[in-house]
């Protein structure tokens, strides 16, 4: 059986001319299984949202997939027409965007917005449909009485929950979440994450969770992919990534979060700036900021993807020798 989502060797560019002026994603492969939470972490501009848009079949021109394929349950999404994609969206694949509590129509009752979304997918309005919508509302832990409310009557956290409910009302198999909790307070964020974790167990959908907050991903994601300048630089199970980050960029990104306890010590973060995507350095894009750069190699040769034990891989020259040892 093919995996739920299979992204293989995808390269995405933005621009009207060929070749496009900006290559936002370079040769990324990633799979998502049913019921799994896969996290994508990285700084702004690392290509994580572009990758998700392409994987959800939502990438609009001037963005386009230049090479590679995205297949959902064996179907190549890039080959589908707009109409076919529209049927797939919401019913099979859903996406919750950043600051999406603002996507609700302010002059429509929540109930009507659910009704519209379901009608667009051919669900006839009936008691059954209404009940399914209300049940979904309760699944995300909003009291049923708010179903008849207008969005402004809900708090920010509740609105975000309502948007998640809308995204899963037709029980999609794959859910994309792009920074779903960034605009919320920590306590609200925590309880929404808890609900999400419960829901994917209950309903069995796969999740692609995009955030810049690596420490958050370590907690909830089964697997984490770290992106830098359009490339997937490391992929590993969540816990292992935290315990033993391999790529120097992952290590640096981890050190950007001051810990809650322990002795106070100065953290360095990541010196320098991410590279300009229109003018990437030769070799490894992280080399100019890397504390472990190998002179003469990293700045000249593109790093290879090295597979490591424990279902992990890393895009780094430092692990070249180890791969040779393994044979």
């Amino acid at each position, binding site marked *: 059986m093919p995996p739920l989502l299979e992204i293989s060797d995808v390269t995405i560019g933005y621009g009207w001319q060929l070749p496009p002026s900006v290559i936002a994603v370079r040769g990324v492969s990633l799979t998502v299984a049913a019921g799994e939470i896969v996290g994508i972490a990285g700084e702004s501009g690392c290509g994580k949202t572009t990758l998700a848009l392409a994987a959800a079949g939502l990438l609009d021109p001037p963005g386009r997939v230049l090479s590679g394929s995205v297949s959902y349950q064996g179907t190549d999404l890039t080959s589908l027409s707009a109409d076919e994609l529209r049927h797939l969206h919401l019913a099979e694949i859903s996406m919750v965007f950043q600051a999406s509590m603002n996507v609700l129509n302010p002059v429509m009752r929540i109930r009507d917005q659910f009704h519209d979304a379901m009608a667009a997918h051919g669900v006839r309005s009936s008691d059954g449909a209404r009940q399914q919508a209300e049940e979904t509302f309760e699944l995300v832990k909003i009291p049923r009485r708010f179903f008849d409310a207008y969005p402004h009557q809900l708090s920010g956290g509740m609105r975000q929950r309502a948007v998640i409910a809308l995204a899963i009302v037709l029980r999609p198999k794959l859910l994309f979440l792009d920074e779903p909790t960034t605009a919320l307070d*920590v306590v*609200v964020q925590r*309880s929404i994450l*808890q609900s999400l974790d419960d829901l994917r167990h209950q309903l069995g959908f796969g999740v692609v969770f995009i955030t810049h907050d690596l*420490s958050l991903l370590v907690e909830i994601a089964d697997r984490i992919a770290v992106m830098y300048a359009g490339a997937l630089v490391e992929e590993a199970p969540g816990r292992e990534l935290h315990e033993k980050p391999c790529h120097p960029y992952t290590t640096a990104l981890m050190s950007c979060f*001051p*810990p809650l306890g322990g002795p106070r010590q100065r953290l*360095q*973060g990541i010196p320098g700036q991410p590279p300009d995507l229109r003018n990437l350095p030769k070799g490894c894009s992280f080399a100019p900021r890397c504390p472990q750069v190998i002179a003469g190699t990293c700045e000249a040769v593109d790093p290879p993807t090295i597979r490591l034990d424990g279902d992990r891989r890393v895009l780094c020259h430092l692990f070249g020798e180890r791969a040779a040892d393994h044979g």
Partner: protein
Amino acid sequence: MVSTLGLPAETSESASPELEVRGLTKNYSIGRIGRQKVVRALSEVDLSVEKGEVIGLVGESGSGKTTFARMVVFLERPTTGEILVGGRTLPRRPSTHRLHEHRREVQMIFQDPYSSLDPRNSVRYSVARPLRSFGLVPRNAEREAVEELLDQVGLVPAVDFLRRYPHELSGGQRQRVGIARALAAQPSLILADEPTSMLDVSIRLTIMNLLLDLQRSRSLSLVFITHDLGAANYMSDRIAIMYAGRIQEIGPASEVMSEPKHPYTQLLHRAAPGPENEHRQGAQFEAKGDPPDLTSLPPGCPFAPRCPFVQSRCQQTLPDLRQVGAAHHVRCILYD
């Protein structure tokens, strides 16, 4: 004024804290006339910040932390309460001259670097304005002074940034301009209102390090407002936890972080994302209830409706701040 116990005025002044706030309260009226409601944004906050001290003010949205900062800078007039800077009381209705003086001593760094700089003003103009307005450097030395400030906040080479406009800068660079502008006034106290929350993760730490370096080299007093406990811990000597417009817990950062006393602090602690919080098996996170409605606060503890340790007493009377350590205070009846 506090009694100086017969000490000469000068001594008492040098011993007084950089900022002292007593009973600071802010109520806003909202709604139509006749049906007005009162929003209790801040209630009777007492806080002092010593010279060269960093205080972290932590709380959720609506806890009153920004209102606090805006009143100390006098962007808002307190409903009641007293603000003393360097031992001098700021009158309720300060003269233009007194306000001008106050603003030289107390500067603010704003949360959103995208809206806190005038898009029509160059970096040079934005940073030079406080210098000019407070008459800090002669006009012919102004350019040099601006360059030096830009240099200090890491905008190097400074010459390249003088003529730039905000739209030509990244978020991190804009925030550095905001910091340079605040420093230009040569303040003794800076209030930084979530200065890193709009920035990318990798930039946050460099801005925090910059603030710490500047604070130490100039022995500034700093009020660092954040909703991120980790950041507060990284920056602060003391941490004050705010909820529903009141300080609920205040103490040395290490104590508040290692032994949070107030149930709300404990909740924030558990909610903070972090590898330390990873895989808490069985420990399902319970966050019942919503943030408080500031228009109808209960007579008792505002956290009572969400508190796992709530007792009947909690709903009736508001607990006082009580001492639980040398400099550690908590507003909770659990520590009676």
